[in-house]
């Protein structure tokens, strides 16, 4: 079961700069475990003890997983998982 995970720019330091990675897993939770195994530190950036962090959005094929089965959302071969973190930036630097 291979799922494409789109990595946003703030997290690419954990994937060696890769913007997409192929991961195994039948649910969002399993894919996050795979991500953690391959790219340590990723799980902590995405989840806390309650689940997905409040300022991170995860989309399964463009649908927010909070409106599906959250971390237990089932994935199938070829699906895409997109991570969208809250980011600032705009007015000054």
């Amino acid at each position: 079961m291979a799922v494409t995970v789109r990595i946003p720019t703030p997290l690419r330091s954990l994937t060696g700069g890769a913007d997409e990675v192929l991961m195994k897993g039948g649910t969002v939770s399993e894919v996050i475990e795979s991500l953690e195994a391959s790219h340590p530190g990723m799980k902590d950036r995405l989840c806390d003890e309650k689940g997905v962090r409040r300022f991170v959005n995860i989309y399964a094929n463009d649908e927010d997983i909070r409106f599906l089965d959250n971390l237990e959302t089932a994935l199938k071969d070829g699906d895409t998982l997109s991570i969208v973190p809250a980011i600032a930036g705009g007015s000054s630097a």
Partner: protein
Amino acid sequence: MEAHRVLVVGAGGLGSPVLRALAKSGAAHITVIDDDLVDESNLHRQTLYGREDVGRSKIERAAANLRELAPELSVEPVDGRFVPSTALELLKGHSLVVEGADNLATKFLVADAAHLGAVPAVQAGAIRWGGWAFCALPDSACLRCLFEDIPRDRIETCAEAGVVGPVVGVLGGLEAAFAIRLLRGERPAGELWHYDALKGSLRKTFVRRRSDCPLCTGEIKDLRMERYTAACAA
């Protein structure tokens, strides 16, 4: 479109393309708020300014440059920060608010104020090579439906991580497009655009109202300062 008054929060990288586009796209009045000075390092992405503006007040220079660009435009520069104590008053009388702030506390404050003031909000965030732009209507999903609350840790700002000039230009352009669509009477409710300059991709998704969103359910009824400062200090 002539009667529309727009509040623009932030006259920097996102605000520059927004202000330029709105000035030439029929907005009758723009109120712009910022408390920063133009810095040499801004010029690659804050396209409203030139070398001669360096060291001068952003909103002063923004107002002058906009008046030159569109002499018929009414511009009110407000020197300061968008803060809870004055947010609703400042928002009053505007058809929509476009946010181009450089910190998440202000982004959430704009979202809360816009919802409480029943004004559409166009928002965006950019860092390094990508970002998002989002449109919330008073009766649609809001920023808190998307990101729930102000992150309390590990969130880089573009000041820390940097942002590639054209990225804020594209996202500011997307914000301007949202604003113009709203002024034309369209309803891009809950549209969330994701831009990735390295991949060359632009994707659209829709944010749905969360049943437990504290803003949409009316739990947030005011703009208490601690809601924004506590999160920032944490």
